[in-house]
């Protein structure tokens, strides 16, 4: 697992989500990246059941259960600013049993699907974020394999992102700022995805081209 940066690509003016994704993938292919299959990252939200809340009436915490096709045998469970648990796929079954403590939020499933490209030591994934039947945005994930310390290779990642994202290049993700010399892990990637999904959820629905 190398250092990964997850960001959102805004939909181009006057174009649909599909067309923007196509534009991006064409740029990548011109750059020389090789298509290597598809990927999928999904997220379900659970909130703590009312019965477990203390008498102080504290707000229920939200828990996100995520899967990543890059780690097919794992399941990630994380709180907003809290710890991340990496478990195997049986965790989903466990969540069913824990219905008393964690209840699934309605219509909360959000996922991103798309193609996976390999360019030298970079792994680029461009996906469409969908919530239910509607496409809500575009996610771009870039991973630089050889390096495991975020602070060492952020400049390099930035340069690479600029080469195909142009002006839509994001700033440094929040997870990078927290730990300077710690080894980067998959939990950090999932935290970035969680932030992205939350941001997209708060955004308005992407307008259909030509209609405002």
């Amino acid at each position, binding site marked *: *697992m*190398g250092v990964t940066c997850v960001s959102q690509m805004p939909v181009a003016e006057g174009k649909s989500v599909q067309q923007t994704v196509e534009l991006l993938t064409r740029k990548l292919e011109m*750059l*020389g990246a090789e298509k290597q299959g598809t990927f999928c990252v999904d997220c379900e939200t659970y909130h703590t059941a009312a019965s477990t809340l203390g008498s102080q009436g504290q707000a229920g915490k939200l828990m996100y259960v995520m899967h990543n096709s890059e780690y097919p045998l794992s399941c990630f469970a994380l709180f907003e600013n809290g710890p991340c648990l990496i478990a195997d796929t049986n965790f989903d079954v466990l969540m069913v049993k824990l219905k008393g403590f964690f209840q699934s939020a309605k219509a909360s499933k959000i996922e991103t699907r798309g193609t996976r490209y390999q360019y*030298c*030591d970079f792994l680029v994934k461009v996906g469409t974020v969908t919530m239910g039947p509607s496409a809500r945005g575009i996610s771009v994930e870039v991973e630089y*394999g*050889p*390096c*495991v*310390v975020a602070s*060492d*290779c952020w*400049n*390099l990642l930035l*340069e*690479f992102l600029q*080469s195909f994202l142009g002006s839509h290049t994001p700033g440094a993700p929040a997870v990078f700022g927290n730990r300077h*010399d710690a*080894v980067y892990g998959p939990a950090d990637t999932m935290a970035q995805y969680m932030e992205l999904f939350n941001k997209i959820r708060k955004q308005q629905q992407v307008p259909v081209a030509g209609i405002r």
Partner: protein
Amino acid sequence: MADVLSVGVNLEAFAQAISAIQALRSSVSRVFDCLKDGMRNKETLEGREKAFIAHFQDNLHSVNRDLNELERLSNLVGKPSENHPLHNSGLLSLDPVQDKTPLYSQLLQAYKWSNKLQYHAGLASGLLNQQSLKRSANQMGVSAKRRPKAQPTTLVLPPQYVDDVISRIDRMFPEMSIHLSRPNGTSAMLLVTLGKVLKVIVVMRSLFIDRTIVKGYNENVYTEDGKLDIWSKSNYQVFQKVTDHATTALLHYQLPQMPDVVVRSFMVGRSLSFVLEETNLRVHEHIQQRLSCSSAEAPKYSGLKNVDPSRGRLGGSVGEASDFGSGHDLAVRGFEPHVGLCADSLAPASDSVSPSLSAPPPLTLCLPLSQK
């Protein structure tokens, strides 16, 4: 040698057999002397003939006796044990298709060749050091005091000595840790971990570095059995390039008489920030050139003198020629990990003998590690 032979050989009988051979030789030469001298002067012809024949017969009898003695002793000596004369490599000699795959004879020749080369290189460097081309006379005096004793020059070094050298180097840099193991016989295998950036597997032959493989920090360096994997390349192209450079570096440093200086210089070149900057520079160029950098950009080793100390990075691009003053061209193309590569490039080092074979001052090239 002794432990192999004493299995079946009677050393006493061996020594006696050798002296029996000497006795036989002397009696045979006495026979010929007798023939050469001819008949001695006596009163009658018969007397002379009789004396001659008697003398001749005596000599022939003594030859016969010595020969019988030798045969008896040779039966006692016995055959030396033929089980695995050279351990596993001796099994190669049992190959029935010897003409098509003459592996064993080639192996022996390669071994003899490298030993002879080692010997000649030692002689050559000894001769060259006498005629130093250095400008200042002071340096020789100072370094002669610093070098306490002559380093051993043979390939066969006690493993303890190698361990000591490696542990000394291990303590040189805080971010670099060296783990030594000997899974395959006496040649050491080092796993050098540089901070959280990369791991280097260095295969050594006594104190000489044979090959290196550079891998990422998160890559697996062990095979399925748990042994150190010395053959598979890194999955990342960056580290494949760094491996090429490291191999160039180890071919660059050739000092037959001071192999531990060589190892130390090699390690200095692998210091952390140096590698990081070099890595990033390389990837930067990769992106710029879109994979067009193949054999056209063969790695050339820019000497450590090129390093800009204020920034701790290579002051030059990949294509810059070495300015270390070595006499040989290091544009090695197409690296594949096999022993032949090292052997090939050792040859020019002994041919194009240049004054730079005398020790460079590597300790003064220690990079400021705190700077990036």
